[in-house]
């Protein structure tokens, strides 16, 4: 097997005394779609931001295409960023720009495309996430939560990057639109040959978009395998998670009256 597109080894990150990632290992093979599942607050978003270099991991190795990137900064980081597209969990749309300008941002600023051409591409991508031309002229504040998410998704894939991160792409969407988005993600991987790393709590979506699934718990990947094996992983943590049971090895820190 060829080298993985992204290889994480022993990645650690803590905020003050709070340890979030503690020696996390993960491989994302090229042109595959990996989905990471795990409880809320287990560090999934932090892991993505560490790979992107938005948060500096204290220890470990983060390789992209075989190149060590944990300490890359400045111009080389900007160049490296061209490989990535990211859908933020909260959308993170630029509220000073119109919807289409948001989607076209990477094309205009990163790839120096003409505004006119970029608008064409942006409208195309917006159509792919089910948003029409009327929406393109609005400002993000005028959209519903689910519409914002779709715009953010369109922005993440607009430059057709090699590696795309989706942080909860379907939360806040209705089941039908979720499925449209799932198809879109699958299409990015199949047709554009992208490598996708997604985070989701939605197991239906995970089963649909994943080639492989990995589960994160207490700052580590505790199980990973092909999507077909998720139901008989033999791992009690995974079983508890996919069946959504409150009883099991994973303890939610809630106090019962």
């Amino acid at each position, binding site marked *: 097997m060829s080298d993985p597109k992204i290889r994480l080894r022993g990645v650690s990150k803590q905020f003050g005394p709070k340890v979030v990632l503690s020696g996390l290992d993960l491989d994302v093979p090229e042109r595959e779609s990996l989905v990471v599942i795990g409880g809320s607050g287990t560090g999934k978003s932090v892991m993505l931001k560490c790979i*992107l270099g938005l948060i500096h991991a204290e220890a470990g190795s983060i390789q992209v295409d075989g190149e060590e990137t944990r300490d890359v900064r400045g111009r080389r980081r900007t160049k490296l960023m*061209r490989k990535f597209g990211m859908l933020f969990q909260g959308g993170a749309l630029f509220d000073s720009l119109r919807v289409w300008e948001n989607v076209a941002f990477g094309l205009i600023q990163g790839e120096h495309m003409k505004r006119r051409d970029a608008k064409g591409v942006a409208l195309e991508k917006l159509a792919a996430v089910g948003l029409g031309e009327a929406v393109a002229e609005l400002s993000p504040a005028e959209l519903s939560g689910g519409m914002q998410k779709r715009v953010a998704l369109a922005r993440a894939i607009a430059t057709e990057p090699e590696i795309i991160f989706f942080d909860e792409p379907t939360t806040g969407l209705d089941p039908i639109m979720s499925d449209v988005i799932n198809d879109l993600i699958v299409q990015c991987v199949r047709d554009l040959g992208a490598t996708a790393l997604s985070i989701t709590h939605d197991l239906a979506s995970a089963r649909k978009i994943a080639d492989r699934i990995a589960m994160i718990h207490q700052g580590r990947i505790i199980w990973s395998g092909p999507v077909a094996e998720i139901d008989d992983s033999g791992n009690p943590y995974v079983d508890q998670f996919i069946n959504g049971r409150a009883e099991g090895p994973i303890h939610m820190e809630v106090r019962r009256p």
Partner: protein
Amino acid sequence: MNPVALVGRIFLAFLQAVGRLIMFAGDGLSHCIRPPLYPRLILRQMLDIGYYSLPVVGLTATFTGMVLALQSYTGFQRFNAESAVATIVVVSITRELGPVLTGLMVAGRVGAAIAAEIGTMRVTEQIDALTTLSTHPMKYLVAPRLIAGILMLPLLVLTADIIGVMGGYLVGTHKLGFNPGVYLHNSWQYLETLDVVSGLVKAAVFGFVITLMGCYHGYHSKGGAQGVGGATTNAVVSASILILISNYFVTEMFFSR
């Protein structure tokens, strides 16, 4: 805790903050002179900082000039030196009150707005999103504001100088009974180029200080709406204090010889 250790710790934290600010300023300035620049964004900031500040600055200058004429008249009347009123008004406005009052007003208006805007972008991950779209936030957000501040404040102050002198002229001729021709003549005659130039240099420094503090506090804000509120307050307070401090040093630089 040991009080000596506490003082030491506070002092170290202070030095650290100063160091961080200086690094930030250097980084921001270096992005101002390295291409690519964003003319579109610079123009927009120039409008925001310059043009839209005109009403506030104009009102401030008018009343300052008016009050100055009135006050210096009552003062100088005591030793029969009323003829100095025109000169006093023009010199105090161009050297001191024009730049300082304009600086303080703009610090309240623009510094707060910058800190709030950039701070909101920080806490909603828009700044992270910029980075993932291969755009350097220092270049895209900070540099245009610094450039606009440094260029527009001198223009604003020049306007304030003219309006302020006109305010003094109005009071002088209508209320204090000066002959219009004589008043204007006195204004001109004793005015030196250095009076105006030193005021404009101050203005450029203040423009830098205001935009820098807005950007710096916004950029480093954290923790949601409350964090952004804190950043806004800090930006205005620190800009105002730095304006008053730097005002002294620029004055000394010009007039100590």
